[in-house]
């Protein structure tokens, strides 16, 4: 089946099977490996991408579902070589260790800040609860999201 959708700001066309998962389409056919496979069944959040700005689990989403819609992956977040404030904050706050949860974590955090530009710490923790991280204990991640929110408010 042919699908058309906007991927990181660019219109694209892809030939997919009815059962092709969005995660596999991105990783194997479009060579965007930023979204990670961590569990394949929606337990860990490492495959998170944005669908029309909403965080979704690309391992549970069929490619055909994104036909006519807009997908943002971690590769599309930096514009013109300029890091997104969340990306900068993750770097500066030491919120990245092994980095495997990072793309999903940053995109989930972006959806949060788009929804709520000034979240409390509790709201941040609540919003990120579906993204597992085994390295950081979430401390520097929460700090980074707060910092990015502050920077974006300026």
């Amino acid at each position: 089946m042919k699908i058309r959708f906007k991927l990181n700001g660019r219109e694209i066309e892809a030939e997919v099977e009815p059962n092709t998962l969005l995660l596999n389409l991105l990783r194997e056919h479009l060579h965007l490996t930023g979204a990670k496979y961590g569990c394949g069944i929606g337990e860990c959040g490492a495959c998170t991408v944005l669908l029309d700005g909403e965080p979704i689990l690309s391992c549970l989403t069929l490619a055909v579902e994104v036909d006519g819609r807009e997908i943002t992956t971690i590769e599309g977040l930096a514009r013109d070589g300029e890091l997104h404030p969340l990306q900068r904050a993750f770097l500066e706050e030491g919120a990245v260790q092994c980095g495997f949860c990072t793309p999903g974590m940053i995109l989930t955090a972006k959806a949060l800040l788009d929804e709520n530009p000034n979240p409390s710490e509790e709201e941040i923790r609540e919003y990120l609860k579906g993204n597992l991280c085994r390295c950081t204990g979430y401390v520097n991640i929460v700090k980074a999201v707060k910092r990015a929110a502050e920077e974006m408010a300026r």
Partner: protein
Amino acid sequence: MRQSFRFIGRSTPRMDGVAKVTGREIYASDIYLPDMLYARVLKSPYPHARVKHIDVSGAERLGAVVVTYRDVPDVVYCPRLVSTPEATYKDWRVLTGKPLYVGDPIAAVAAESEELAQRALEAIEVEFEVLEPSFDPLESMRPGKPLLHERIRYMGEEVEVENNIACTMEIEQGDVERGFEEADVVLEREYRTNRRYHCQLEPKTAVVRPEPGGGVTIWTTTQSIHNTRLLIHEIFGIPVGKINVVKTALGGAFGSSIQTNIVVPIAVALALKARKPVRLAYTREEDLHEHCAYQMIFRLKLGARRDGRLTAGSLEAILDIGAHQIQAYPLLGCLVGWWVSLYKLPNLRYVGKAVYTNKVPSCAMRGYGNPQITWAVESLMDELAEELGLDPLEFKLLNHVGLGDLFWGQGPTVKSIIKSSGVEELVRRGARLIGWDKRPKPGAQRGRYRRGIGFGRGFHTSSAGAPVPGTVVDYTGAMLKVNEDGTLDYVTAMMDCGGGTLTAHAKIIAEEIGVPLECVNIVRADTQTTLYDVCTHASRGVYAGGAAALQVAREVKRKLLELAARVLDAYPHALKIRPDEERGQGVIYVEGVEGREITIGELASMARHKNWGTIAAVASVRQGSCPPHFTAYFVEVEVDTETGKVRPIRVVAGADVGRVINPKLAEGQIHGGFAMGWSMALLEDTPYDPRSGDLLNKGFITDYKLPTARDLPPLEDFQVFFVETEEPTGPFGAKGLGEGALNPVAGAIANAIYNAIGVRFYELPITPDKILKALKGGERR
């Protein structure tokens, strides 16, 4: 005197950070090659069985390439190559006809798509003879129980296994009986730990490409590219030079890839047969059937005099290692090492037994047995202090192994003297910050929510270095060369599991030579272009790996100054190098003489034009000790006596890691260590279903309780501090950190729970069920 540093001790972003936040970092699981086949593995549905018959023709008819236990080399190996042959037992085969746990690989297929591979897998017909399994080590050791392995290999010989005991170790020092007689109080308790799963976010993966001429290129989740290479050589006989293992980023490991994961030899076998690249990427469920932490049963006994001095200790440890040995024997040694290096025991006896059970093979998991034994010791010391009427802090400080003491580090073969210790200050400062003096009396509270404060301390070795060779391989190679623009290429085989290890190396190099940090380029390397490094484990990345980085930096600096001395017409010892951020490189200058200077780039270019050659250095470095880094945790918890749930209220964590290289990333190790310790104490376990012999959670992490962002204390209530010491053997005085960050956490939490509700628990995890049951029964031991 405190030196001033330009890079050391200042927080700098990790150098692979931009790649990681932009999704451009490449992990082994991100490797997809042209014309690649997808592999799937056929696994045993039984915990103990024998394959009577296997028919793969259905799979082959679908066009799949198939290998079974009959097709792989008849080599018995140990997947972990960190120990010397004297400390290595071998009981693994690539695929098996006698599966020993649910999930044991029997055959594997490769096909053009994952779907086709799965169909092929399902077309394989297997007939099993089901054997009696054992899931508990005590049961497994009983005479007459079916043996998992009848014979295993040691030093090239076959050895018989008796009563499923994989290996044992016994150590006795002093006169234990007399030691206990001299004690005024003797306590003996039995502790049982949980069977945890690493849950590194990246499931185990191997991509193997056969090369013309019989070689292979391998991308895999590993903590040691060189040991992966050597193991593939050992199993398949491919010349070492024709095996190239390429470094990729690693999505966490926590010890689960010290050994070469089973996906690697399986993918090699398939790729060699298919003559095409093969990708074998485990699902999460498969990964949960690949490794777990060692579950341990301790009978621990300690005796002390009224004045608080310990007089004797005895420890019987039974390790439930699962179906295979990965490092059970060295672990028996480390376990006694961790135990006797916490507190001074004038008389001691240790008996350790590692026992096979029909469960997933166990391996190191952050701390390598240290979190387990430290939980038990810190619990019993707390209990003993109470019996003696002493403050646990004072009791522990009085007995702790500290500065100038003999340290067993990585076990009886790795002994050294402690040359730096911040223990006393860690404990005193932590106590002040948490308000130790104001903590409640144990069990005195009433009401639904009860709070308590607990203390736990511990340590871990930094590397497995030692003054003598011992039975652990521990050294690191490094290369450093100066490019023509003043940048430097740093080449190391060492992996960065996420701790920021290689960023620390770059900082050490930049500091030593005097160049901007951005000048140090960490080369994407592989086994063919690097010197041997044993592994990124044992908290050795900064201490041991960093020592190699420092050595090549010193050598390069010496050569730079020698050449610059010619050019600048000055003596080498009168020259200095400063990092010039504007020019983006280091500048060599004659101190006190204005205008007499040259950039490193100009010098390197001149060296090229004048044919002086490349300015470079290479070193292979072995550390002569494995100094302990120390940690102390003070944790306040709240127990909900109606639901049995425990909530973290406050954490104060102190660490002596020698000199801190990168504070924010160092703090990150503590944060992550606490989170892992929190769930070790309260949440994580992988129980088995005795009927199916499979994991009760079937491999789903939904049913494996990990902490989420919601479950941990608020930012302002998690305080981390460092007590800086100068470790004379460490690069710029640095020690390790990764494992010490976890080791005492469960003990501190268990003591906090006791302080809140007056109940001690001897089995992990301390679940709401256990808490409610204990409160209901009014149980107070």
